[in-house]
């Protein structure tokens, strides 16, 4: 009897082993070829200086890294990226959460609102950025038109070095609110109504209910969203690429790290330097993610 069971167990184990590896093979092969090995290749590449037209890779050791540490534009870009993330992430999460709470009840036009708020998410960033660039245009843009009619001066939305990043982050927030909102709605639906009913009986106001029930119970979702959104914000490229160019006085103080990467790797064909920049980005993201995971215990409620 035991022998039979053991045989069965070994066969089963064998079978699972074969099928298991078979099934994960396509994905793992792809992962290795497309992702794992490239990581090492990028690290490798960062020690070289590429020639034009893909020829003549010259080993330069740590030169790229030395250059990067001394390069003001790299650190400025990193700082710019932080600035962007600091505006985009908290606001997009806060606004989306409030929206989700507002739309979580049965009300007229609920699905219409949800559709509208999600719409920006569906539009290609390239198109979105173009329209916003046009809206923000200091001379011909709609926003300044409206300001002027109301008697205010025009604002240099995207050409003021000090504040441009805010308005670009606004575009980011605008695009991503719908996405965050949908995630929060899903999370909210997991919260049992009983809590709210009990609170209402106790006479708690809506605001109190929000902070004492909703926020703690949706904190796992908030954690997930904030981690993923921060990682995404640190990689911002599309909006900046589409809305800014070298002529823009705000360029130096707004260009993101990934934008620099793109410029060095593909426009100036300096792939080695681009790779070094990406390494920096990876390091920063890892650090931030680890910090976030550590801090999880302080504010996230898992039940």
């Amino acid at each position: 009897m035991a022998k039979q069971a053991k045989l069965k167990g070994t066969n089963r184990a064998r079978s699972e082993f074969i099928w298991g590896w078979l099934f994960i093979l396509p994905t793992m092969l792809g992962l290795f070829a497309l992702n794992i090995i490239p990581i090492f290749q990028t690290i490798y590449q960062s020690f070289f200086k590429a020639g034009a037209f893909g020829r003549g890779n010259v080993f330069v050791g740590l030169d790229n890294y030395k250059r990067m540490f001394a390069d003001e534009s790299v650190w400025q870009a990193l700082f710019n990226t932080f600035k962007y993330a600091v505006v985009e992430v908290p606001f997009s999460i806060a606004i989306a959460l409030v929206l989700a709470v507002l739309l979580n009840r049965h009300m007229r036009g609920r699905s219409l609102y949800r559709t509208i708020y999600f719409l920006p998410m569906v539009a290609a960033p390239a198109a979105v950025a173009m329209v916003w660039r046009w809206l923000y245009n200091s001379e011909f843009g709609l926003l300044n038109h409206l300001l002027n009619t109301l008697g205010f001066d025009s604002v240099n939305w995207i050409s003021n070095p000090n504040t441009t990043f805010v308005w670009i982050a606004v575009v980011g927030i605008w695009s991503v609110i719908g996405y965050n909102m949908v995630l929060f709605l899903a999370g909210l639906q997991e919260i049992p109504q009983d809590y709210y009913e009990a609170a209402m009986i106790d006479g708690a106001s809506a605001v109190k209910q929000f902070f004492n029930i909703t926020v703690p119970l949706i904190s796992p979702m908030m954690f997930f969203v904030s981690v993923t959104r921060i990682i995404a914000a640190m990689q911002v490229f599309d909006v900046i690429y589409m809305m800014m160019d070298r002529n823009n006085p705000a360029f130096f103080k707004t260009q993101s790290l990934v934008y620099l990467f793109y410029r060095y790797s593909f426009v100036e064909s300096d792939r080695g330097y681009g790779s070094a920049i990406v390494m920096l980005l990876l390091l920063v993201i890892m650090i931030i993610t680890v910090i976030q995971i550590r801090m999880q215990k302080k504010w996230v409620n898992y039940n």
Partner: protein
Amino acid sequence: MKLKKIMAFVLTMIMVLSLAACSGDNGSEGSSTDSGTSNDSNDSSSSDSSSSDASASSNVELTIAIWDTNQEPGLTQIVNDFTEKTGVKAKIQVTPWDQYWTMLEAGATGGSLPDVFWMHSNEIARYSEYEMLLDLTDRIESSDVLDMSKFPQEIVEIYNWEGTKQYAIPKDIDTIALWYNKTMFDEVGLDYPDESWTWDTFRDTAEKLTKDDGSQYGFGLRPSNNQAGWYNAVYDMGGYIISDDKKSSGYDQPGTIEAIEFFASMSKDGLMPPYEVLAENEEHALFEAGKVAMITAGSWMLAELCNNEYVIENGDIAVLPKDADSNRRASIYNGLGWVAAENTDHPEEAWALIEYFGSEEAQQKQSDLGIVISAYEGTVENWTAAYPDFNLQAYLDMMDDLVIRPYSKTTVRWENMANDKMILAWTGDKTAEEVCLEIADEMNALLAEE
């Protein structure tokens, strides 16, 4: 619910209609496997006739890469003439300037460049050094169609590598002229610009045309607009950008500094729109919107400006102002070249195409169609007829004093550096002299590395 369904339906209809319209326009879409942009709706008849004339021997289709979408229709006509003669087909692909060189580089890395493409003085050195281009020297010598002496020698030289290899055939030349808004001049009762104008007259007029309320400025020029902008004044005022032996920078020359100071002060004194506005909008956009009374523009901007409603009604062209002291009225000029890829699969056909482009016949047609000023001597008489409402003659008049666009082996590096620094002169953060001296230092360092 119903509203959404209706909305969705309407949007679908729009999309379906647009797709139908697209497939209607793209007559050539189905036929060629590597279809690019297809402006051939007008030319479909001629390409049909050429393919029926085509000798059965040639199934070659060359790829041509250019960056100016305005030139495509005209060049396509010339290509069709070529196809009629030789049976070799060719397709033009347009990639905007910003991505053109990246596109080529990507193609080169992957081992595939277009068969025939435009070359520019900024990049010729790199392509020559890495031997990416077909060496045309021998073919040119043995050609009975081409006469290299008919092209401006300075342009031919740009594409000649180390005195031994000729990599390109000149295509065209471009000059710079002054555009002005007649209506604005009339409003204030000023005379239109003419050959008597000096840079001082120009400045005074700009002042008179600048309105206090900021709705109109006399002039507009971006710091990055060197070829069509401040380069010209630099030479008028006795300065230069790069020495003839290409070993030293001319930015520290008094004449150069004077020119930069001239424009920077116009910006600081409010005769130009604020820098932010200039940064966000190109000069021609400001001109077309009636925001500035004058701009300088290269002859390559004709298709854009001459076809714009507002400009047709209000604009015209004059020669650039001259310097009061030196009496010089220089125009920077540049010329593109046609090159073939070294590793093209069809070197003979590619050569035939380039040879044709450089022939008197094609060059004449290029001018006649108003595409650009052809490089071939004596082919420009009809060019001015392309846009009769405008004084195109001004561009031809500027040909009396031509200065080749400054270049060296690493043009792009020092040009970008200079343009970035130039911004500070415009905004007033640094004086023109400071900026120029800084540029001179860095440029000299870069030139020394060459």
